């Protein structure tokens, strides 16, 4: 069971569809504790990503991620642009030269990528950011892989961990980003960045997991 370039494209497409479907929901979350543009910005960025990828020649895994990165950086704006841009840029760097990824490769690449986001944005867990969904996801992913679990199991655990982390942002008082200006008033609201990150892990599960394998085998 390995992750192919084709599945990588499907992953990006799934995330793009997700950003379109959930645009208003994400914008609503961002209105509560931000300036109401997270859904709008992510949707715009991912639409631009798909336009670029669909118009281009087939590429390898690393090239796909780098195209996502550069497109997001130049179209999303705000904090999400540089942060998601860094995530995908690091994924691109970590998968350089690989035709396929094993579960271990994916865990290692995503871990490097999340650490890159932390270095850029300087967030730590409990700051009420995307990191609160992504840190649990990479921990679950790596643990599953270390225990010898198969890819489907590892992806499922990562998605669940991201969901739990996302929901755990609700009571937190924000210490980063626009939400931090609200102080205590940011508590009681789910973080929009953690939400889009959970949707990212969901997309990875759908694209790289058993359902995808079954579909490509049919």
């Amino acid at each position: 069971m390995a992750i192919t370039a084709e599945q990588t494209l499907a992953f990006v497409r799934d995330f793009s569809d997700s950003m379109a479907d959930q645009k208003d929901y994400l914008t609503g979350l961002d209105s509560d504790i931000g300036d109401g543009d997270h859904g709008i910005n992510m949707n715009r960025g991912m639409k631009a990503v798909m336009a670029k990828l669909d118009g281009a020649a087939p590429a390898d895994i690393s090239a796909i991620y780098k195209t996502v990165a550069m497109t997001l950086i130049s179209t999303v704006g705000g904090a999400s642009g540089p942060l998601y841009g860094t995530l995908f840029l690091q994924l691109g760097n970590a998968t350089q030269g690989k035709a396929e990824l094993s579960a271990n490769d994916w865990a290692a690449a995503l871990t490097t990528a999340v650490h890159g986001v932390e270095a850029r944005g300087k967030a730590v867990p409990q700051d009420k950011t995307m990191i609160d969904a992504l840190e649990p996801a990479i921990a679950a992913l790596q643990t599953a892989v270390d225990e010898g679990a198969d890819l489907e199991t590892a992806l499922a655990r990562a998605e669940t961990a991201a969901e739990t982390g996302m929901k755990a942002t609700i009571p937190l008082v924000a210490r980063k980003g626009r939400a931090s200006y609200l102080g205590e008033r940011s508590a009681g609201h789910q973080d929009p960045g953690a939400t889009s990150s959970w949707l990212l892990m969901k997309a990875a599960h759908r694209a790289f997991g058993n359902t995808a394998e079954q579909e490509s085998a049919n």
Partner: protein
Amino acid sequence: MKKLINDPEAVVREELEGIEAAHGDRVRVSYDPYYIVRKDAPVQGKTAIISGGGSGHEPMHGGFVGVGMLDGACPGEVFTSPTPDQMSACTQAVSGGKGVLHIVKNYTGDVLNFEMAADLARGDGIEVEAVVIDDDVAVKDSLYTAGRRGVGATVLAEKICGAAAESGASLSQVAELCRKVNANARSMGMALTSCTVPAAGKPTFELGEDEMEIGIGIHGEPGRERRKLAPANEIVELLTKPIVKDLPFAQGDKVLAFVNGMGGTPLIELYVVYNALNKYLHGRGITIERNLIGPYITSLEMAGCSITLLKLDDETRRLWDAPVNTPGLRWGA
């Protein structure tokens, strides 16, 4: 929410086309990527200054491009930081061989995008310095927040630094001056209403008929505290007391008082506010030597105001008075 727009997705582009049509005698507009520069850019041998930020704060920053203020400005989508490719291209377009100052408002998005842009510019061999403006006293500057926001002092810094650059100051001198302005200015804002981002279609937050929001930023985000609406005199005290306490401004200080309209508040009210501010400061032995009253750093149609006080010295007073010719601010030229 009724707006005077066409397609909500095309607002920024159409605005830029309007700016080019109206002010093409003073500015040039780039559409790919978006930025505005003074018509004679790059001005050889002069330190250049650029800034940028989300659209929706007009006239800041694009309206401040011209002689004596900004060399260039990068507009992002509404309330969204511009992207590194914009600042990188704009920096190149204004670079006259003496380096470029980036004036950056302290919002996570602005800071991150400008950081990446500065890396790109340095990679192109252009000397770049960045100064972050963080004058808002509404947010506690602590380890537990993203830091204080950059608000009204941004306009003052752009004018004062622009004058210094125009008169031949070096990059390091202009950067030092920018830090001085930031260090001597404090601001606080309030809102009577929220505002509606065109693409979102509804207000960012709801405020009751008898409520006001104290300690707002400039992006339609909720502030620190919601209170019952009070008369202007009381509002001025609510905003000014923490400003004065924070620097602190002391008896005998000479200041520039900037009463800014958030976009939806009419001048008649801004003058009522200024009157109250003048009396409040006079009562504390603080002299207003210069003033700026009007909508200069706005938040779309938000009703409300912000107050910025800048402690003046001979240098900053002289540079404030220096000629400026931009669509948003013009005197002496």
